[in-house]
């Protein structure tokens, strides 16, 4: 499989009244063609910001990418300006994004067909009539009944599930190399969510598109994803294939996370404490205050880089890594 995207050392900051929030801190990962990547972690850990940074959609001010590179198909995207022509061509054309909120992510004052068609006219330069035709076609592919009529509806006339299907369809229109789905199904009902996930899964398989799934639902990760990155407080703290990670979580956070999911007959063991603030984080391990494995050295040394453990498995837990090397 071809390497599609390589993110290295990505760091994004927000200047806020409270101080500088390092929302994404030295994040590196890669995506291969046709691969489904999961990005998990609790709310506020920087999942969305890391993905928006790749797309250069960070609201500026207050946000700013301060370091790192994003190499996509051999080009370093961060070299292009936010509003540069190159970046515009990539957004929506080569990489597209589906956002969490189906209610607010569509322009309320435009028919869905125009909103979809816009991507086509923008990137493929085709005329409006054809754009409409293709949009309607896509609508039927994503399972909207009577797409010809629905195309002229405004977003508020569709249910949440349908709107999110429109978003998914829109992201597929230009046949991009990669789709980033930022909690694309979180806001939906359980049964509708399943419907939509299945649809996306089929579509990316069909077009051999890479998919980055941002979510905090471990069940979804378990079901669809090949490789998963676990984020905590702006850093990727562990990464590996799903099976590997589930079978053998290295980082105490990952471990804790897996124990938080109610399972029949098992008592929940919550991770004690609260997620940390991202302001003025010391370079030590962000999970330190909550960590049950912490050692004295953890307080003194900066957090290690994401280090290879075995196979596709990487972690940043010093104790585990050192424990390993000790062995």
């Amino acid at each position, binding site marked *: 499989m071809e390497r599609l995207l390589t993110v290295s050392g990505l760091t994004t900051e927000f200047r806020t009244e409270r101080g500088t929030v390092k929302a994404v801190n030295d994040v590196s990962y890669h995506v291969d063609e046709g691969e489904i990547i999961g990005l998990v972690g609790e709310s506020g850990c920087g999942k969305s910001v890391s993905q928006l940074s790749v797309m250069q*959609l960070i609201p500026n001010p207050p946000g700013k990418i301060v370091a790192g590179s994003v190499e996509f198909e051999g080009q370093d995207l961060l070299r292009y300006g936010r*509003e540069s022509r190159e970046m515009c061509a990539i957004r929506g054309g080569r990489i*597209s*994004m589906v*956002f969490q909120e189906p209610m607010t*992510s*569509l322009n309320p*004052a435009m028919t869905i067909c125009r909103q979809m068609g816009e991507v086509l006219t*923008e990137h493929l330069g085709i005329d409006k009539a054809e754009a409409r035709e293709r949009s309607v076609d896509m609508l039927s592919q994503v399972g909207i009944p009577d797409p010809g009529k629905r195309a002229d509806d405004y977003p508020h006339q569709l249910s949440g599930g349908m709107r999110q299907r429109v978003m998914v369809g829109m992201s597929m229109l230009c046949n991009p190399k990669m789709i980033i789905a930022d909690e694309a199904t979180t806001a939906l009902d359980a049964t509708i969510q399943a419907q939509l996930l299945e649809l996306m899964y089929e579509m990316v398989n069909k077009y051999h598109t890479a998919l980055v799934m941002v979510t905090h639902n471990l069940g979804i990760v378990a079901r669809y994803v090949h490789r998963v990155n676990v984020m905590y407080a702006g850093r990727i703290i562990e990464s590996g294939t799903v099976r590997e990670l589930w079978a053998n979580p290295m980082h105490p956070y990952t471990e804790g996370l897996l124990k938080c999911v109610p399972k029949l007959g098992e008592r929940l063991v919550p991770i004690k404490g609260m997620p940390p603030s991202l302001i003025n984080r010391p370079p030590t391990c962000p999970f330190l205050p909550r960590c049950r494995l912490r050692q004295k050295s953890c307080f003194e040394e900066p957090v290690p880089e994401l280090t290879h453990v075995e196979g596709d498995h990487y972690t940043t837990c010093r104790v585990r890594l050192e424990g390993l090397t000790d062995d």
Partner: protein
Amino acid sequence: MLTYIVRRLIHAFVVIVIVSIAVFILIRLLPGDPIEMLISQTQLTETTPEMIEALRHDKGLDRPLPVQYADWFVQMIRGDFGTSIMRNFDIGKEIGNRVTVTLMIGLSAFVIGLVLGPILGIVSAVRRGKFVDNLVTVIANIGITAPAFWVGILLIFFFGVRLKLLPIYGYTLPWDDFWMSFKQSLMPIFVTALGPIATTARQTRSSVLEVMSEDYIRTAWAKGLNERKVILRHIIKNSLLPVVTLQGTMLRMVVGGSVVVETVFVIPGMGKMMVDAMLSHDYPVVQAVTVIMTLVVVLSSLIVDLLYGWLDPRIQYD
């Protein structure tokens, strides 16, 4: 849609009834009696109470208030606004002439505000924090911080008396003499438009800033649109929505401001008529002018709301 309009018209009617009752009562609370004022304007040094009573009877002011009101209101609905107590003219006809003039000035100012305000607002929002933004803020504020009569007279002295560029007073309807009308309208329209421009610009600015942080704008960026397209296609229409609702108030401001502007620039419109009638306690004139002005405001806000529905597909009328 039709039921909506009908409902709004009924609503408008209710508003008119309330306003007319309020004005009917308020104007009668003014100290001073129009009949006495009228009599003091005649050639007579000597007036008897009988003469005053006769005159009062003549003008219909001796009847019980509810009767007077009901009679006046019914006549008005039929399109007859009665006759001026003080000056004996047909109010309906006079208003007919004057409402055109007030609306010519008012609507032009309104339209200018509607065009310039959003442009300034968008520019300053898009370049927020920059020099342009501050410039627009200051300019927009000058427009609403200075008393209108004062701006008016400064303009008259500068452009009229000093530079002799523009006529100082008077008004010609555009279909009578377009060029003259244009020249005469410039200053009054400018003074009238200052408020709407400034208010609309401010409102647009904050509305654009708000829309810019909406999720669907992020979606638009994610589609790969460039800044120009994002602004033109996605931001403008959505940010104008709250601005449109503001326009109802704007017309109220413009129509009310005509009282001052028309006096300064000698424009024979409703505002001037209103002041004159107020000062001479010409009850039926004040009542009629207020009702017509209110009607203008009410109808225009109906139009604004319909426009709103056209702009915002989420609104449904039923």
